[in-house]
């Protein structure tokens, strides 16, 4: 019994770490732009395919493919932000950028569908089938990499936000864009930086998720709904809350599967979301909006 509880806890942390990586990008963008990015799911998919092709066509190492997926995600974020979202921000409309993110999402999905086809790709890494067994507990090396990369990324992101000038500037823009501008901070550059970081995180999450996901042009959409739920449970724009909520959702999934039924996962997760909205709409970790990110 204890073995199963520990095993499911590990399973939950692994899945939760993946969710955190996807959700962090969403929460960063919301924190700075107060904007929901529906195309985030497709940056996850693009990252997954970038890693897939790098490994299967060029024969690159999986860890190198994660780094490349991060760069590809960041580049996509830069291009889409420059081409679509920056021009729309001058309209001062909240609705236009939101609709644009949906448009970009549909467009990217269909471009990938036309190019890559609808049949699932099998993404195997050398680490997926290398299993470590200790006292009845099993863990693949893939899971170890996921936890290690997610922990490192979260730590680096946290350090960047808290201790670097750029990170502080991003936080300043998220708190009050106009005042930050008066202090000499170029808000547009920092919005671009946030978008690139968030998209890079999505691309990297894609490379980590690819061996787990059913890899098709729609792969990212299968996790994005949960990522949105995590962002809401954790508190929109709140990094610490997102991390906590991501791990919580991962654990809920594992233990619902073990003790209830996998068919009930969405009921439990989204039930929690509704509960949070009803009793604590600011999320798990309450902060004033000004202090987010």
């Amino acid at each position: 019994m204890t073995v199963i509880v520990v095993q499911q806890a590990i399973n939950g942390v692994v899945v939760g770490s993946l969710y955190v990586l996807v959700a962090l990008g969403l929460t960063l963008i919301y924190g700075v732009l107060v904007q929901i990015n529906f195309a985030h799911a497709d940056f996850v998919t693009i990252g997954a395919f970038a890693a897939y092709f790098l490994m299967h066509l060029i024969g690159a190492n999986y860890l190198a493919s994660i780094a490349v997926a991060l760069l590809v995600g960041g580049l996509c974020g830069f291009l889409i932000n420059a081409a679509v979202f920056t021009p729309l921000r001058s309209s001062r409309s909240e609705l236009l950028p939101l609709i644009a993110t949906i448009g970009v999402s549909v467009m990217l999905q269909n471009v990938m569908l036309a190019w890559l086809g609808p049949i699932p790709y099998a993404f195997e890494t050398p680490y997926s089938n290398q299993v470590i067994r200790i006292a009845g507990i099993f863990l693949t090396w893939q899971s170890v990499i996921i936890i290690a990369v997610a922990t490192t990324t979260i730590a680096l992101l946290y350090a960047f936000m808290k201790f670097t000038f750029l990170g502080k500037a991003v936080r300043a823009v998220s708190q009050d864009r106009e005042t930050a501008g008066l202090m000499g901070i170029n808000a547009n550059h920092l919005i671009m930086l946030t978008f690139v970081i968030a998209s890079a995180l999505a691309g990297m999450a894609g490379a980590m998720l690819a061996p787990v996901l059913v890899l098709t042009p729609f792969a990212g959409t299968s996790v994005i709904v949960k990522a949105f739920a995590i962002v809401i449970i954790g508190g929109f724009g709140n990094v610490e809350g997102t991390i906590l909520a991501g791990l919580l959702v991962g654990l809920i999934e594992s233990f619902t599967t073990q003790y209830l039924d996998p068919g009930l996962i969405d009921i439990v997760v989204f039930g929690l979301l509704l509960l949070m909205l009803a009793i604590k709409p600011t999320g798990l970790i309450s902060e004033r909006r000004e202090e987010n990110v």
Partner: protein
Amino acid sequence: MSIRFHLLLALASAVSVVAATSSAAQAEDKTIKIGALLPISGPGAYFGTQDKQGVELALEELNKTGVNGYKFVIHYEDSSCAPLPATQAAKRLLEQFTPDVVIGEECSDATLAVMPLIEQAKVPLINAGSSSIKVTDPGNPWTFRIMPNEVMQGVNIAENAYNRLNARTAVLLFENTNAGIGNAKVFNETFTKLGGKILAEIGFGRDVNDFTAIATRVAGLGKIDIIPTYTLEGQGLKITQALAQTGVTKGGGGSAIQLGTIWLPFGFEQKAGNAALGYIRIVQFDPTDPRPLVRDFTSAFKAKYNADPTHINAHAYDQIMLIADVVKRGGKDAQSIRDMLAATKTFSGVTGSVEFDKNNQNDKMDTVHYMETKPDMTWTSLKWN
């Protein structure tokens, strides 16, 4: 006289022009319009892609000479393996293309959703991929299914598992759809009646990506002989790999054998890798079948697509060939095609034979072929049926 003669000549010319025009129009009209509702996007898109290949090959062969003076035209709609897009696609197909006959869908939920619309339009529907019993039970005069339904498959798999594999314990894994739940239920009933024990029934949604938690739960259930699994290819791959990682199945050094259905395409083993070792599943087409019909189909398919045909290619090919058979017997419009389909007795296709019972269900079991994955990830035909 001369004027009369010229008038008669002019009249005769006019009549002959009208007759010629009419006959040309008739020749143009001598086409059978086939509507295809296939999942071309979404999680079941591999069905649609492979169906299309089989359909195109059959049409290419048939349209070289035609059948009883008829040529065949087809129009595809993406029904996405789900009820809502399927009904929208069916409406477009029926209103804009006005087909004489429709083939599809692959997924039971989608097929069940379009059946009332197609019945209302009085157009026959030939189905080759949906296993839910509800497709032909209690029976719909306009729907015909050429593959065995979930009861026929489920009973057959459970009996073979119990008698040939000596399986006594099972865990059922299935997606929460009509077909998934229905197939699992039939297996459960038959296996239990034979004396077997179901240790757990685990259903899941199509949005589940990581199956490690499910595999962990399965691993904690004690000794398992077989794991019948009802899911589409994408999730099927992940389940097989997760079960191997937990050491439950043969692919992971355990003893349990995963049993699968015709939902999985050929090539599944190569994608799943070593995890698929020992996987036994049924397919509708056996490429090692020595019948000349199968050999000809296989070589024609290889020549056209430079690949071996899958059972999905094969059942799509048979759907079109069955329509051609019906046209050969006098079918020319929706009503007569329906009537001729119902009277089908001796059709022999590349997947097997077809004879419909009173519910328009093909009652032949020679379309069910068992295959087992070998250590080199190729497969061998078990010749159980």
